């Protein structure tokens, strides 16, 4: 019932859709680089959704943009599996659209304001064309129908649609490219709460009907709890915890994850009574990250060892992994109080 700490390891034969090894993405000059993603490794099984959570500046958007080929990488390896194949090197960024698509946070910015929406959706169907030939219209209208946008809306411009409808259009466009892997960067954050559930449900349906794999970046635990199978937690360019979503959200091991989850205001009578642990301060400057464990400057459990030795995320076979020297003791302390 409950996702226990010693959950059985998943069958290793599970086909992988995405593998990222030791990925490094830097911004800025070579002399004063900002390592926005600093040695992140992760794997996503085919048909699964990996949620990524973390504060602004943790590198979660940079990570998915790099996977999508929209940012150059400084180090590491990205491998993507085609629909029915094994993991292989990701294509050069220009050609990666057939492997990975992205759904962005703000659909108003992600769609061309001057194109009728069917043309935006049809663009991946006819790559290389400056203007999509009209013969792709029927296919685009069908895709729009699959995301709940009726044919009568196909000739509208994005400004004539609501935010929820616009996001559905960008989803149709992402699906049109037939890429097996989709990066979702806060896809419902700009939508009203009543519309969020509908878009999430659509994403979940498409995942099954079109056999898609998602990496889903969000700061909203409600969406993550609803759509993700696995969840990774990022802090200052590092992945600090990863595991099955129920296990991580219920029994977070890293003190950062604990604070992050505790900070989320939830609508429950229990949560109102609970006193929460406030995380002091803000995320440090990524140009000058703290030595050792990057979280130690805000961690109430930090000890001398944390400043000198950087904890690594386990490479073992266990499903729920954490990069913290002291997590078993911390978890005992937290459950004891």
């Amino acid at each position, binding site marked *: 019932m409950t996702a226990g700490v010693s959950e059985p390891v998943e069958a290793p034969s599970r086909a992988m859709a995405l593998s990222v090894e030791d990925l490094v993405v830097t911004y800025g000059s070579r002399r004063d680089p900002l390592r926005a993603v600093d040695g992140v490794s992760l794997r996503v099984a085919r048909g699964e959704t990996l949620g990524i959570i973390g504060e602004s500046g943790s590198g979660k958007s940079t990570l998915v943009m790099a996977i999508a080929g929209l940012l150059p990488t400084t180090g590491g390896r990205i491998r993507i599996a085609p629909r029915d194949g094994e993991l292989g090197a990701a294509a050069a960024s220009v050609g990666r659209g057939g492997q990975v698509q992205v759904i962005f946070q703000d659909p108003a910015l992600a769609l061309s304001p001057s194109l009728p929406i069917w043309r935006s959706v049809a663009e991946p169907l006819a790559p290389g064309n400056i203007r999509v030939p009209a013969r792709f219209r029927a296919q685009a209208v069908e895709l729009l129908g699959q995301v709940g946008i009726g044919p009568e809306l196909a000739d509208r411009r994005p400004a004539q649609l609501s935010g929820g409808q616009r996001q559905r259009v960008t989803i149709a466009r992402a699906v049109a490219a037939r890429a097996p892997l989709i990066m979702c960067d806060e896809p419902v954050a700009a939508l009203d*709460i009543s519309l*969020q559930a509908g878009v999430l449900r659509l994403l979940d349906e498409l995942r099954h009907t079109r056999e898609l794999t998602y990496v889903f970046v969000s*700061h909203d*635990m409600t969406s993550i709890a609803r759509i993700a199978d696995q969840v990774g937690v990022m802090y200052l360019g590092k992945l600090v915890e990863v595991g099955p979503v129920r296990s991580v959200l219920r029994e977070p091991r890293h003190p950062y994850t604990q604070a992050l989850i505790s900070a989320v205001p939830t*609508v429950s009578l229990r949560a109102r009574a609970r006193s929460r642990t406030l*995380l002091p301060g*803000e995320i440090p400057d990524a140009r000058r990250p703290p030595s050792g464990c990057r979280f130690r400057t805000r961690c109430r459990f930090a000890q001398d060892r944390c400043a000198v030795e950087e904890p690594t995320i386990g490479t073992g076979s266990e499903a729920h992994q954490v990069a913290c020297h002291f997590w078993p003791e911390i978890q005992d302390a937290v459950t004891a109080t």
Partner: protein
Amino acid sequence: MGAHLLEADRLGLTIGGTRLLSDVSFTLDEGEVVGLVGESGSGKTLTGLTVMGLLPPNAEATGTVSFQGTELLTADAEDLRRLRGNELSMIFQEPRASLHPARPVGKQIVDVVRAHENTSKAAARDRACDLLSQVGLPNPRRTLGAYTHELSGGMCQRVMIAMALVCEPRLLIADEPTTALDVTIQAQIIALLHRLAEERGLAVLLISHNLGVVSDLCSRVITMYCGQVVAVDRTDTLLREPQHPYPWALLQASSVDLDATGEWTGIAGAPANPARPPAGCRFHPRCPYRTDACTSGEPELVAARNGGLTRCLRHEELTLTGVPA
């Protein structure tokens, strides 16, 4: 009258001929922290701006809004100016957009102090410094000289709150004060508002679309839909047993249940347009509990079974379930 700090009664608002608020009635008592929730376009922010008297010139308001016995809708500009800042303050969603980008934040606070009080620059600067430390900014002396681009979103919001507190107002209207912030910083700001309300007896009207934030901080919740107040509940009543299908649906949409088997629903359809509201109950096109009666009779805001108010024709027969205890 005069029993409530703030009382809005059948407030209606038209801007440039477009009807945006139709029937907004609520009260707020001294020292009370009350949430105002609803989707985009429901009229939450306009309600806040009306109380502040910050409407465009082509706005026409009807009904009454009284604050400590002063009728705000008919008050002259001079009276309003005296109330704003001294008694009423407002903070906004985008703190950075509300601050001057090319003037140190300390100077901006000093401006506010000196606009309301006859004090020397040095004394005003000390006040500013004191306020910045009260809102939990580390190193307030240095922050006085900082520009907004040197501060994070959370720090800018603390500066805004400090500025709003200059004249020790009785009522703070906080319009989505944490929406643009990270959850960890949001928790810090919520804790700050909570502390200020408790220590200073400050009444807060917290405008938010996030029921989590509201239920965390507020003792009562006012729910708006399509330019009307549709429900007023004590927070624990709302969480246990909502008395109107709209707040019920919002609650369902915002609760996380890790054990749920994937059956989660939003609210069907899109929010109604207050300029062209549906006939009958304005929520009926999206309401799973509607009957024929809901499509014609326009419900009034009436006392609900478990206290509070509801604008639902079927409130006596419906029993809606809240969130799990």
